[in-house]
């Protein structure tokens, strides 16, 4: 099968997944399109190295790489080291901004906004798990981290969501027992 036929058969079905991931990572519709387009160019280029059948995880890995490269070029300050304390600070800080407070009134968007405010490392595992339905193993592959790290980041991401001030309905009975 020619490369372009393979691309249409293996990669294109996962375009929504690619765009969703890029959109959640970049938090911008236009930037997400740039990232996905770059990822498609790369996927086309490396398609020869796609063996086996897990095209979705393979493609999402490329999307993630394309995003981080894009991030390095455009918003290098956002690439934060995976330092628990620094990240916690980042979240508490984000939760306190006026924009966040204003959004609290809009109940239907509260959860989405809280997720948008999560630090990158947590946002990506949560999106892969909850929106793309990837298994721990697949997330480990896409995000290039051990399964143990997938689990701890997921736990952290969820705890941060449950504690988020914009999410009282969920946070209520959990915040006390979570530490």
């Amino acid at each position, binding site marked *: 099968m020619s490369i372009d036929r393979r691309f249409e058969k293996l990669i294109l079905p996962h375009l929504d997944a690619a765009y969703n991931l890029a959109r959640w990572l970049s938090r911008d*519709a236009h930037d997400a399109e740039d990232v996905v*387009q770059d990822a498609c160019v790369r996927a086309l280029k*490396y398609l020869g190295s796609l*063996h086996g059948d897990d095209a979705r995880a393979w493609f999402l890995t490329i999307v993630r790489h394309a995003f981080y490269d894009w991030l390095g070029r455009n918003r290098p300050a956002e690439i934060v080291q995976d330092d628990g304390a620094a990240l916690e600070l980042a979240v508490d800080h984000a939760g306190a901004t006026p924009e966040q407070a204003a959004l609290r009134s809009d109940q239907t968007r509260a959860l*989405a906004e809280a997720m948008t405010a999560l630090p990158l490392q947590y946002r990506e595992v949560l999106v892969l798990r909850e929106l793309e339905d990837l298994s721990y193993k697949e997330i480990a592959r896409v995000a290039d981290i051990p399964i143990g790290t997938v689990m701890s980041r997921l736990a952290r991401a969820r705890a941060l969501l449950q504690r988020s001030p914009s999410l009282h309905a969920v946070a209520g009975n959990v915040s006390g027992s979570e530490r």
Partner: protein
Amino acid sequence: MNCHEASAMIAAYADGEVDGLRGHTIRRHLHLCRDCATKHRDLVDLRARIRAEVPRFKAPAALRERILASVESTRPAVKAMPARVDRWRWVSAGALAGCAATVVAWVVATAVLDWRTNEDLAVEAVTTHVRATLGNHRVDVASSDQHTVKPWLSARLDYSPPVRDFASEGFALVGGRIDYLDHHPVATLVYRYRDHMIDVFVRPPPTHALPAPLRTVRGFNVVHAVGSGMDWLAVSDLNAAELSRFVDKLKE
């Protein structure tokens, strides 16, 4: 099972990642323990809320079309051009020149792109080599036995790299590790030649780049070759002639 043990597994259980006996044990604990049951229910609720309230974005139609168009355009670019020149002989000399210019531009652009790819790859390979040396993390599996190194690597990759020891010729196998090169996990074979460490990155040949056989990056020699169905990229401070000789042996 106590609460401490259960709490480590509640999330995995809520994610459907625990089954069999362990799943049964957790279920029993959740029946008996109120705190853990609450934690579990909160997680399940959160997951349900995310699914219900958080949007999964769909790729815009325009993006899909743009991507399809760019894929289509890669198809006729190579083949159709000469055929068209042949068939439409009556086309004016001006148009022919235009076509030729397009082909030339395409060839040049492709060559430049490939050159860039190779340059980036060489730099990335050298960076990886230096990081491994500095970090003193030369090997994930330390063994001079090819029958130990090869299965270790195969178990962690979607291909099985050929692994051979050349100790009798001075190139002793030290071990192997997994690196990340060119956006893919790659098998790295580590050899020692006298005082020189050699990293050999082995992967299935990518479709794009034409190997630039030899370059020097920050004083390190990088030798690139294709053979035995694999793409071989060797990095070392060993002199270029010896390194090339070694790569020739590897790819046989």
